[in-house]
């Protein structure tokens, strides 16, 4: 479970996150949605400590994030970004096992965990011997997910993980991801600007606007009862292209 308490983050004069307080309940998927620049990625980076709040606190599993505990807390969090962030000098397996090697896991334990994860993310095992640039975009994201899950974290943070994929692969991976999230029962925070994707994953959705939470709750509620003009416009903007076809 993750708790944000009056968190503010500024980049120079610009306020990226504005006095945000929210509770992200455990073992559930929360989707952060909003236009670019609304602060959703910054929120994720605040949670994993890649950036520090100017005010307020972030609490993960009951521990407030500090410079001293951040590294050990990160072992309880997995992080996947849009283009995977895989290290080009390591094979798929090397990427997945990097942290476990560093923590001194035995080779047997590493191999067993990788076997489990390969099955979970449905990656052909021989692909793990390839370097990232030898893998397709979808495969890269599956490897990236394996790397995030390697230490069996309780929290999984995904920053537009499907954003760079073409639609067919994207749909495949969406199905697999939702399936994985349900099976693992982890605290998942999923960032996207795509309302369809948000609806697909989200038990709980938070709409961000200009660094603040505009509206949060169940997806269906957000779509049917937007509480502000911005929320209504945001939903309408993504619906518009298809409505045009329906006429």
């Amino acid at each position, binding site marked *: 479970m993750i708790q944000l308490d009056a968190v503010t983050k500024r980049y120079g004069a610009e306020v990226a996150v504005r006095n945000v307080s929210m509770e992200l309940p455990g073992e559930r998927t929360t989707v952060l949605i909003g236009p670019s620049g609304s602060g959703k990625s910054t929120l994720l980076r605040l949670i994993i400590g890649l950036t520090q709040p100017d005010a307020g606190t972030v609490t993960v599993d009951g521990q407030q994030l500090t410079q001293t505990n951040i590294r050990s807390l990160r072992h309880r969090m997995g992080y996947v970004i849009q283009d995977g962030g895989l290290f080009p000098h*390591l094979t798929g397996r090397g990427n997945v096992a*990097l942290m476990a090697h*560093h923590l001194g896991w035995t080779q047997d334990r590493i191999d067993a965990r990788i076997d489990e994860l390969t099955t979970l993310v449905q990656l052909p095992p021989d692909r793990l011997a390839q370097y990232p640039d030898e893998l397709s975009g979808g495969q890269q994201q599956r490897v990236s997910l394996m790397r995030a899950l390697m230490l069996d974290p309780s929290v999984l943070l995904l920053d537009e993980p499907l954003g760079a994929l073409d639609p067919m692969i994207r749909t495949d991976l969406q199905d697999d991801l939702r399936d994985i999230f349900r099976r693992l029962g982890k605290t998942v925070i999923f960032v996207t600007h795509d309302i369809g994707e948000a609806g697909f994953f989200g038990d709980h959705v938070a709409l961000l606007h200009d660094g603040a939470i505009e509206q949060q709750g169940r997806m269906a509620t957000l779509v049917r009862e937007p509480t502000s003009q911005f929320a209504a416009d945001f939903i309408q903007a993504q619906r518009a292209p298809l409505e045009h076809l329906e006429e």
Partner: protein
Amino acid sequence: MGRNRKRMDAWKQGCSEKSTTPSCLHASRRPCLQSSILALLPSLPSPFRIRLSPLASRLSTLVLLTALLTIPVQGQDSDSTVTVGSKTFTENVLLGWMGTHLLRANGLAAPHRAELGGSRFLWEALVRGDIDAYPEYTGTLRQEILANRSIATSPDSLRAVLAAYGVGMTAPLGFNNTYALGMRADHADSLGIETIGDLREHPNLQLGFSNEFMDRSDGWPSLKRAYNLPQTARGVDHDIAYRGLNNGQLDVIDLYSTDAEIERYDLRVLEDTKEHFPAYEAIFLYRRDLRTRAPAAISALKRLEGQIPADTMQALNARSKIDQVDESTVAADFVNRTFGLATTADTNTRWERLRRYTADHLVLVGLSLGLAVLFGIPLGIIAAKRRILGPGILGIVGLIYTIPALALLAMMVPPLGLGRVPAVTALFLYSLLPIVWTTYTGLKDLSPPLLESAEALGLSPSAKLWRVEIPLAARSILAGVKIAIVINIGAATLGALIGAGGYGQPILTGIRRANLALILEGTVPAGLLTILALALFEGLERSLLPRSMRS
């Protein structure tokens, strides 16, 4: 060519003619290079007491191996070794060889560091103890080296001053190699000119003098005054002056009284009736500590006293310079003929020479590059990681690089003496820049999302550095090493200037003798070595870098 005797800033041309020349001339006087390197090695990996990635550990093993392999395996000089030095022109090299052959005939170990440099350079090497003896000229001592001391004209007063420096002097070897004026003999005969004073009667003669002679205190201005000469002279390059004399464009030039060309061009040396030019009697200088260390050495050198008349020296110069017989042979023939000895010249086949140059060059390049990699990569890392130290490191390394390689080499000599130590130090400093810079930029240019991914995983800073950052920057770092290899192998040819040997040695001798074959003897192998080193390095790069990181 051959005029540089009095050029005090003359560039230090040098080489060690004997393969036995060690990197440390006298262990007792200076800490030895080998031992200091060895002392350094065990402490190297300790700053990085973390688990290295396979790449990083392979890289550091490589560095250690390079450094270890290139440590010269050589014997030490004993106290009884007598090292002879000589200056960068033929006559002095010949005299150096004569002394060397006589020392060896007396059973002494006598390496000859031929073509070491100019007068000042040899003098300082002698006083410091890098060499034990070298041929000098009394005029050079009085007019240049000890010019700030007022020394009475007697040889004894010169001896006394030298003794204060711990230096002894033989009696004159028999010839006076002073400045002189020369004309074509037939031309002089037709005009009836025999002395410098006779020039007064022929105001239309064309006088062409070397630029140095135009400037010197005992050169043209004072000569013109002393003899009341009406002509104006122009400055000409000395080699061109001989040609001008030959084709009639010049009538009178300056020369040294033992120049090989005098006989060759059938020149008349005009008599200096007013004794305007100071005497440049050839003598041998030696360290006075030889009297206890190797007394036989002094008596061996003294055998040359009075044995070399001017015309003999002229003929020997001509044989070496014009007939291109190597100095060691000419000198050996002379001492054998004069003293009834049977010494043999230090001649090597081209392959033997090549092997020696290659060994010397590899030591210079291997040691300096190994050290540059050893220090350059950590310095680049510190520069990239420490905001306070970074600009300082980059600034200093950049500043070193702005010093011309030649000057950097020269700057190493006062504190470090001659030979490999200063050469390796200069080359090491010179090779630092590309390695430090590419390490720095390689680390600075890493993609921020990758760095954040590493951080988000929870890697410690050092694990992040060794497992992610350095491997990702490896291609850039290795490119820097590659640039350093190319620069270093080329720059190492300059090492010959301060007696470190290598491919620069035949190049320098070739330049002095205007012998293209000799120049190529150094240039071609240096080029081949560069190509070979790059090919080897690229193979190594392939084995170090994962296939995804290769270009």
